[in-house]
């Protein structure tokens, strides 16, 4: 996609794959499979992940960068 001029930003919950595949921009969360955006109905949590991803689109200048917001699963409070 990037070769076609389309910027990509991905969410990952499996760091090993991300480190090996080296996609252009990744937000990594140490969360369970099936929950890349968080918990069902948790709109603030879902938006927090998307906010990080879109911010990364603006700020990331190094291909292969991984950002880890460090939100603890079911413990982080989202404002």
């Amino acid at each position, binding site marked *: 996609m990037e070769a076609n001029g*389309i910027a990509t930003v991905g969410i990952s*919950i499996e760091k090993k794959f991300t480190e090996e595949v080296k996609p*252009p921009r990744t937000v990594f969360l140490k969360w369970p499979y099936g929950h*890349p*955006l968080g918990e069902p109905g948790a709109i603030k949590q879902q938006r927090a992940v998307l906010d990080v991803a879109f911010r990364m689109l*603006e700020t990331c200048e190094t*291909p292969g960068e991984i950002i880890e917001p460090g939100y603890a699963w079911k413990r982080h409070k989202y404002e």
Partner: protein
Amino acid sequence: MSKTANLKTKLRAWLYTRFPFLAHKAAAKIRPFSFENTPWAPIVKPLSEIKVSIVTTSGVHLNSDLPFNMEDETGDPSYRIVPSDADISTLTITHNYYNHSDADRDINIVFPIERMREYVDEGRIGSLANQHYGMMGHIRENHLGEYMNKWLPEVAKMMKEDSVDCALITPG
């Protein structure tokens, strides 16, 4: 896939979600494809002007579409198109390799279409693409050639024709 194999797969998917360390242990044995050089396309306009398409490998598709093939244990490399205005009640997930019971309750946790519509309404991003893409991430080596050389280029071509600036990629 036989009934026993299907049950085993579903049990494994449940265990991986309930006990993530088991999933990471299993993932450690898989060799994903890798690139020497990461391809790169910068965003050259403000977020408030970009057009976004969602690509998910979580097995999301319209419930009127052909489900992903779960009979082939090496995966299904094809994609399904999800129109941007699809009501979420018309979406479903076909993927036996992760536990999607929570995503079945709120599809936004793997395919954040409603959040993206909010971002457009708030002017935080410019617009959504005409269509999004559902794939099934459990693809083994025998399908990689077809995936990389046929299906992904087709998706990239459609995105280009749709003037997409950014693909948001989400797993299952």
